[in-house]
């Protein structure tokens, strides 16, 4: 299995994403200015502050040459994981539904949170059980998931809400406690928590590794 990890100017979690994905296969960096993904089996759009996020998180990155290739790859059913800023980029690119707004508390939050698995129909959630609780850290200033009520109803009905913050754990005011969503096909998965920071017991949790393992098994 070969993972490609996208690097934009301003990305800052690409090394941890490489290390996490590298536990389940080969992982290599993909530069934002390149127009091709090469022979990767899965793509990770990592966290950070792409192009500085000065306009709106992910708004510029979605126009990078590599994102065209990522869109085509996702359209062919290729697995794509967006983490934090990567989630914002995928929403801006229209690969995932909804948008991420400034946290309800208007403060950057950095803490471990408990998540509940809502749906495991995506390959990234294939190793998770519905109702299972995960402990994964968040660190963001613009992580408040938003979508109109009719779209939220549709996402829930189709099983596109993959993870919710556990009761009392919502760190940013996300609607309906949503922490992760997928596209309709399930191959594109975005979340604000950082699974790449939860792959080694020395840092407190290995729950994040399950997302990489699930997708890697599907790719293999």
């Amino acid at each position, binding site marked *: 299995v070969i993972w490609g990890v996208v690097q934009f100017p301003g990305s800052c979690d690409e090394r941890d994403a490489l290390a996490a994905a590298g536990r389940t296969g080969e992982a290599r960096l993909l530069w934002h200015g390149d127009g091709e993904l090469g022979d990767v089996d899965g793509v990770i759009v990592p966290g950070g502050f792409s192009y500085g996020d000065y*306009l*709106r998180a992910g*708004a510029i990155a979605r*126009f990078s040459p590599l994102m065209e290739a990522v869109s085509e790859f996702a359209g062919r059913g290729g697995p794509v994981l967006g983490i934090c800023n990567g989630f914002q980029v995928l929403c*801006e690119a229209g690969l995932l539904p909804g*948008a991420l*707004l400034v946290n309800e508390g208007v403060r950057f939050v950095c803490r471990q949170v408990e998540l509940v698995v809502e749906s495991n129909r995506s390959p990234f959630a294939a190793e998770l059980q519905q109702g299972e609780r995960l402990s994964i850290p968040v660190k963001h200033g613009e992580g408040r998931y*938003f*979508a109109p009520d009719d779209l939220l109803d549709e996402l829930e009905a189709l099983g596109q809400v993959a993870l919710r913050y556990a009761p009392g754990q919502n760190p940013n005011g996300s609607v309906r406690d949503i922490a992760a969503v997928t596209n309709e096909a399930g191959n594109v998965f975005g979340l604000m928590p950082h699974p790449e920071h939860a792959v080694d017991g020395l840092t407190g949790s290995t729950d994040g590794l399950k997302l990489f393992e699930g997708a890697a098994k599907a790719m293999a």
Partner: protein
Amino acid sequence: MVELEAESADDLPALCEKLLANPLIEDFEIETIE
């Protein structure tokens, strides 16, 4: 608010739709000052 100097205002709606505004969470108005 974003202030731009432009030869023509014709391209501004497309610019706002593609780049400056996410229609899911934002709206925009264009005011032209000669």
